[in-house]
């Protein structure tokens, strides 16, 4: 959800809250008895103080000028302010000492607006998170560099590998690091109800003087980049996207899902000025998944219920039906296809961006080869609402760079081939950086798989019809899931990020 989409709702809520958030203060005034005539239009409660100290608190009253009396309804209090009688009274004006009015004034102090605004926002968040905890507290294997940020995960490892059969290697960019000492420590956390089996964690370091000097491909090749060109044109279905994709900042491009089909496709057309004809170029793309993939995984497990183990075992046996279903679902929502326009062949697919997980943005280079002409036209194709894209640039490629592979110098003990981690576990891997460069572009290379834990409440959603649909026609299953995701789409990401307390 982009800020521009949320801002009107937030502003409207804030304005409404400011209007209703108030305190009431009393503003009493006293008048001589003869001034009652001028108060005749004042229809609010009136206090009539008698010379003896007793007081009438009147809810309805009328001054009868001919008799010089107040005809009224209310309560009479003695001097201790204990009620003496209720009802109708005729009060001669000559026995009245003073009359008193009390207006209630509404004030909107900053403290009340702040308290009310926070109550509305926090209360809404609490209701949403309590109704749908999966949207607030779900997570994936995460890597942190504490010297950069203790709270913001910089990478997610092998998030698509939710079964042993899907074990994979994942290379994620950590950014440019200028180490204060000779070591850099990476913290790996298991922050969800998952069992992680980590086969290896390596740090890849490429000497670089500045950010964006080196980019990595998904296959683990590293290229020096001599020039980065921002898009001259960026057109999605929602309009111009140059602002979101033009810089590596917090602004991202995002669209909403199709309400009838989670597999419905959309495209972004990009055009870049080519610095020199025939230059060897690549597309530098920074993106992360939205919560569609998380939702589909969780909901698939819920539909399979007690049969989830059987389904995962089928994947591990390379069962053709299970593998086909997996390929169809993740092949649809789990990748961005990049095509380059060729005046002869038309749109030609040149590569894909594949990075699982909604938490950390990854930057990848998709090599395009040598391109002639003065403009490069690219088309990104993806499932609607499944991706957030933060940056796209045409990179003029220099020489391929060699990454220095670093094994941890300190590693937690493990048994067998895998380091098995459970919810709440944290491991710190310390790597010794080679001398010789002041700064490095760092990449974490992790290999492994994980198992999502079945939640008790998901078992209630077991649905044999949906199980069969996932196995036989996964694309149709994505259509059935679409309305259910659509109903919570807006709140999903908002809740997730707003409630990452201890992370």
């Amino acid at each position, binding site marked *: 959800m982009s800020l521009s989409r949320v801002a009107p709702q937030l502003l409207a809520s804030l304005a409404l809250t400011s209007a209703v958030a108030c305190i009431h203060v009393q503003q009493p005034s006293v008048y001589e008895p003869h001034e009652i005539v001028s108060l005749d239009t004042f229809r609010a409660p009136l206090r009539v103080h008698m010379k003896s100290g007793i007081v009438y608190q009147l809810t309805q009253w009328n001054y009868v000028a001919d008799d010089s009396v107040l005809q009224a309804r209310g309560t009479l209090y003695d001097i201790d302010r204990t009620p003496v009688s209720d009802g109708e009274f005729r009060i001669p004006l000559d026995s009245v000492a003073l009359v008193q009015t009390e207006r209630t004034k509404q004030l909107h102090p900053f*403290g*009340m607006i702040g308290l009310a605004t926070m109550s509305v926002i926090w*209360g809404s968040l609490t209701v949403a998170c309590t109704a749908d905890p999966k949207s607030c507290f779900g997570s994936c294997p995460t890597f942190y560099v504490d010297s950069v940020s203790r709270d913001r995960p910089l990478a997610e490892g092998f998030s698509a590998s939710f079964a042993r059969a899907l074990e994979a290697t994942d290379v994620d960019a950590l950014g440019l690091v200028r180490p204060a000492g000779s070591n850099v420590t990476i913290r790996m956390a298991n922050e969800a109800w998952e069992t992680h089996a980590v086969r290896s964690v390596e740090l890849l370091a490429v000497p670089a003087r500045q950010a964006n000097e080196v980019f990595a491909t998904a296959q683990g090749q590293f290229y020096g980049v001599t020039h980065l060109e921002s898009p001259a044109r960026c057109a999605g279905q929602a309009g111009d996207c140059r602002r979101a994709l033009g810089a590596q900042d917090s602004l991202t491009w995002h669209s909403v899902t199709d309400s009838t089909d989670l597999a419905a496709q959309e495209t972004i057309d990009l055009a870049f000025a080519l610095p020199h004809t025939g230059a060897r170029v690549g597309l530098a793309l920074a993106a992360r998944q939205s919560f569609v993939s998380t939702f589909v995984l969780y909901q698939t497990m819920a539909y399979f219920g007690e049969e989830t183990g059987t389904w995962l075992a089928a994947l591990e046996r390379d069962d053709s039906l299970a593998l086909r279903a997996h390929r169809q679902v993740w092949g649809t929502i789990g990748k961005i296809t990049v095509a380059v326009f060729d005046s002869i062949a038309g749109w030609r697919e040149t590569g894909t961006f594949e990075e699982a997980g909604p938490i950390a943005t990854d930057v990848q280079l998709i090599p395009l080869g040598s391109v002639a002409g003065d403009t490069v036209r690219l088309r990104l194709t993806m499932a609607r609402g499944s991706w957030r894209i933060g940056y796209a640039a045409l990179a003029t490629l220099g020489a391929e760079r060699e990454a220095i592979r670093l094994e941890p110098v300190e590693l937690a003990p493990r048994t067998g081939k895998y380091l098995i981690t459970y919810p709440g576990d944290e491991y710190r891997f310390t790597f010794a950086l080679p001398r010789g460069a002041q700064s490095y572009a760092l990449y974490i290379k992790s290999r492994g798989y994980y198992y999502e834990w079945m939640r008790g409440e998901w078992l209630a959603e077991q649905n044999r019809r949906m199980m069969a649909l996932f196995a036989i026609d996964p694309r149709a299953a994505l259509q059935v899931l679409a309305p259910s995701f659509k109903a919570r789409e807006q709140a999903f990401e908002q809740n997730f990020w707003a409630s990452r307390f201890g992370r």
Partner: protein
Amino acid sequence: MRLSIVIALLCLAAGTAAPAQRLKPPFGSQVSVDLPKGRRVSGELLAVDHDSIWVLQHQTRTSIPLRDVSQVRVIRGGMGTKGALLWSLTFGLVSGVALQSACSSVADDCSDVLPKTLLIWVLIGAGSAASLEGSRVVTVPAVPDSLRARARFPQGLPAAPEP
């Protein structure tokens, strides 16, 4: 989400509008009278005349010469420090317990959700309290005309009051 915002706003509107509808017994305002050397007398303002101010403090009527009074702080009603802190603590506790329970159903290591929610709400309450207290209390000069309307007996103390 949108529905919960609407519900929360309606509750808020109802909660803040309610005090305006109630008719309270006609007591005097609660005041705090500042005297020389940092002394202070607090209680219900009973009456004011040209040279004295009477305050009912713990069922005892206290007469204070107006010349000794530097200023009078009058409580006008509405939420103050106590209310803001009570609201914050209650809200923080309820939402913290709900969020911790929701977190525990899907994730591990949720032990800090409740303490952090409470901490955030204590800070919100403390920040709001100062502003609310400033609106709730008004400082009035120690002159009869300014204070009379807020006294239990604006006409002056009756001959034999039995407070």
